[in-house]
């Protein structure tokens, strides 16, 4: 009798452990948060915009912040409108307080993308670069990571893919494919990755 009870108890424990772990695995994948955030960086850019109406002067020095993410090959991927017409760029990792000087490697104003390079190899120490994934499906969960307004630390908001179509990019007035999501995106999020299943699905 005692033995049967013990076996039942054992079964119950195993079942409990199984349920516990399966629930845990589910919650992680459902949150789309199964990734490391250490590759997301805050971008500090100083720019001096050309005044096309008064071409003998500039619009004055502005300081703006955006986000970016480290990808393969010690590159930082960000939005072109974060770094265009810049005079000085610094980047800061999530886990660090130190800012490193960065330079624009390439800028594609038509697709609103840019890559930055940091000379100091110390900046990339211990980072796990993000991989670039596939096109998501409608209603796929995406997590948007970045450094938007309203604070200094990393912020993650989550939503789903609500629409996918070719549309005019504000930065270039050119029609390219864009994905619409319902996650909160605020000024400063620009350049930060949108992640699904641990891979970049958008920027």
């Amino acid at each position, binding site marked *: 009798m005692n033995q049967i009870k013990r076996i039942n108890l054992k079964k119950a424990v195993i079942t409990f452990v199984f349920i516990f772990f399966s629930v845990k695995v589910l919650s992680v994948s459902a949150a789309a948060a199964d990734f490391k955030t250490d590759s997301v960086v805050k971008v500090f850019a100083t720019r001096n915009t050309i005044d096309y109406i008064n071409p003998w002067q500039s619009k004055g020095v502005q300081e703006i912040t955006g986000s970016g993410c480290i*990808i393969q090959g010690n590159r930082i*991927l960000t*939005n072109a409108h974060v770094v265009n017409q810049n005079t000085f760029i610094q980047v800061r990792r999530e886990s660090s307080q130190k800012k490193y000087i960065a330079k624009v*490697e*390439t*800028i*594609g104003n*038509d*697709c*609103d*993308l840019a*890559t930055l390079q940091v000379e100091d190899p110390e900046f990339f120490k211990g980072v796990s670069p993000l991989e*670039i*994934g*596939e*096109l*998501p499906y409608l209603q796929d969960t*995406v997590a*948007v990571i970045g450094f938007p307004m309203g604070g200094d630390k990393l912020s993650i908001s989550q*939503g789903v893919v*609500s629409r*996918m179509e070719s*549309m005019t*990019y*504000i*930065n270039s007035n*050119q029609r*390219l*494919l*864009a*994905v*619409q*999501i*319902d*996650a*909160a*995106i605020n000024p400063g*999020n*620009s350049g930060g990755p*949108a992640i699904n299943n641990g891979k*970049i*699905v*958008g*920027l």
Partner: protein
Amino acid sequence: MQGIPDSQNIGYIIPTPVINHFLNDLKGGQYMGFPYLGIGLSNTENKALRKYYDIANDAGGVIVNNVMPFSSAEGF
């Protein structure tokens, strides 16, 4: 990426095909950008226009209004 004033819960992201095109372009050393045809289009929704061009009821398509000089579409 961009926003629409007075909208809510609308955010845009640049999808990976565009990112990959950009990154693959970098491998060549210089960024060449996205190609474009260089044509002006209008849709064929207007009834009078459809009648003028004699477009069948079940036909779709667009009308090419102009082709920009020296663009990719010139000469076609």
